[in-house]
């Protein structure tokens, strides 16, 4: 097992260096050099430009700059934002909990609704429910979620007035940020009004971001269950006289879960892509919103650092999924 873990971790190193190289190249590929980018629309005198180029080591050969960049990344320095003058790392840490909170809620929502639906569809294979659910599942997976979010706002916020339109919490409340997770911080603050405000802000974005994973999970659960329900051991369990629910939950579901869990693990990238759109629609102050804004404001250091951090995050999650999978299934340890 140790060898398996070490090999998986070692595999990540070249990919990570590749990722840092990609983010290093980013700042060199955008039109204008980094100094011009930083000067923005104010412009800069040619003399000062040359001085700064020298000061930041940008007149060095490219490979040397890359080595310097690697050194900076290794020491945790990801540059400073042009717009807010904060370090990219600080900004990321401030906004990251919001994205995690939203993504976790979305994936939990998708699992809580998608798995039971998939199981029922598999049990009632060929019924109207099954066909209806599979139709809805394809539709959900085809959803342009930025539009879906706006439609939800239109129906539930504007017409019905049930939920707020945007943000994480109403301006009327101030909650001391302790963990950065609004729901938990509200819990600590002992303010019931703040809690319900935070929860009501979370509902629509959760549903919108959870829609595609929900569709994928329902479909995957159904097909995994169908496969397992045809196996001999399920027939044996039935023949033994076990009750229907017991066979489904104890015998079938446990084995059907393996592919489903893998699919859930692989949804991280999709979830982050979705978070970019969901956060933009709901003005949710998270990483996705931050990155889109950085492109629109031409704040390239933020884009560079943010992209690197997101990629590192995805790699870590993938590694986690791989290791868990190896833990559960000795055959793939090899």
């Amino acid at each position, binding site marked *: 097992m140790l060898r398996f873990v070490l090999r998986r971790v070692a595999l990540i190193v070249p990919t990570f260096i590749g*990722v840092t190289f990609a983010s290093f190249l*980013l700042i060199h590929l955008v039109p204008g050099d980094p100094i011009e980018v930083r000067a923005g629309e104010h412009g800069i005198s040619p003399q000062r430009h040359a001085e700064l180029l020298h000061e930041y080591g940008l007149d060095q050969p490219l490979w040397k700059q890359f080595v310097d960049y690697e050194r900076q990344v290794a020491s945790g320095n990801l540059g400073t934002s042009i717009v807010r003058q904060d370090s990219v790392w600080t900004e990321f840490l401030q906004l990251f909990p919001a994205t995690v909170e939203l993504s976790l809620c979305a994936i939990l929502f998708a699992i809580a609704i998608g798995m039971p639906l998939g199981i029922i569809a598999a049990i009632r294979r060929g019924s109207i429910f099954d066909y209806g659910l599979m139709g809805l599942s394809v539709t959900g997976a*085809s959803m*342009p979620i930025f539009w879906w979010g*706006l439609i939800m706002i239109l129906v539930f916020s504007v017409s019905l007035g049930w939920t707020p339109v945007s943000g994480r919490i109403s301006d009327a409340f101030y909650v001391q940020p302790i963990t950065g997770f609004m729901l938990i911080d509200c819990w600590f603050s002992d303010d019931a009004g703040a809690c319900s405000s935070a929860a009501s802000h979370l509902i629509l974005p959760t549903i919108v971001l959870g829609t595609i994973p929900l569709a994928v999970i329902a479909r995957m659960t159904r097909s995994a269950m169908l496969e397992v329900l045809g196996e001999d051991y399920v027939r044996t369990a039935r023949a033994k006289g076990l009750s229907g629910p017991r066979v489904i939950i104890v015998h079938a579901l446990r084995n059907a879960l393996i592919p489903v869990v893998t699919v859930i693990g692989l949804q991280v*990238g999709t979830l982050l892509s979705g978070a970019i759109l969901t956060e933009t629609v709901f003005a949710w102050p998270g990483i996705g919103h931050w990155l*889109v804004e950085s492109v629109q404001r031409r704040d390239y250091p933020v884009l560079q650092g943010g*992209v690197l951090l*997101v990629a590192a995050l*995805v790699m870590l999650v993938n590694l986690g999924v791989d290791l868990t999978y190896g833990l559960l299934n000795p055959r793939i340890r090899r």
Partner: protein
Amino acid sequence: MSATDTLAAAPVGAARLPGRFATFWRGFAANRGALLGLAVLVLLVLVALLAPLVAPHSPIQQYRAHFLTPPAWERGGSLEFPLGTDDVGRDILSRLIFGARLSLLIGVAVVGLALSSGTVLGLVAAFAGGTLDVGIMRLMDVMLVFPSLLLAIVIVAILGPSLFNAMLAVASVSVPGYTRLARASALGELGRDYVTATRCAGAGRLRLMFVTVLPNCLAPLIVQASLGFSNAILDAAALGFLGLGAQPPTPEWGTMLAGALEFYQRAPWVLTFPGLAILVTVLAFNLVGDGLRDALDPKLRR
């Protein structure tokens, strides 16, 4: 269609073997959703081709007297603008009809570009082996680490926002999928006897790659490509929505949604119809893709 080679071996039961296409069609047509999707796509292609004939107005003509006219069935609507007008008085139906051209163009261009370059890269990796193989596949690993929309955003940030650059970005993002598939299936074929036989007969490397091996790797690639259309259209629309794709007044559906942001609460129709157009198109491509998967590649059936 040589992709159905594998199907020719499938038992058919009938005394007379049906043709390849007939076998494929029977598998495809058994899926009612796929037929529905195909019907929608045919309609969409017709509308796109005949856009100037079927559209009641020009997509960029601004009718100064008709800002934000509601759809015909609502109060204040008129049959002159069946789906209403937008904030500068352009007919929404006409814009949607011309937008269909763009969406199909995006789908075809993105999938064509990504499929061809991904396949070539995958075949080269499989045939060359060694350093080149490792190099190509590591590069693909790096690309796969970035969430697809984020990578597309970064590429557009470098190239500048335009429809063409958005298409380029979405295509680059989907290359790794095709490369991995092509490499995996080519590796599977390389050990087969027919490949060795062809090689012994003196076939050159290029011939082996594209004439001998490629046709037998096509089934999974075609399935992936048909599902790739929906991703391409969704991602390009998302870029348009974020202001990083097609620029106004281009009647691209995602860009139309971005333009509706300021006043959709007053005039919901400006928002509803472009989104529905995206949803229906993507859904149709997904249904057809599922049908193709069932008909072409039973192994991939989920």
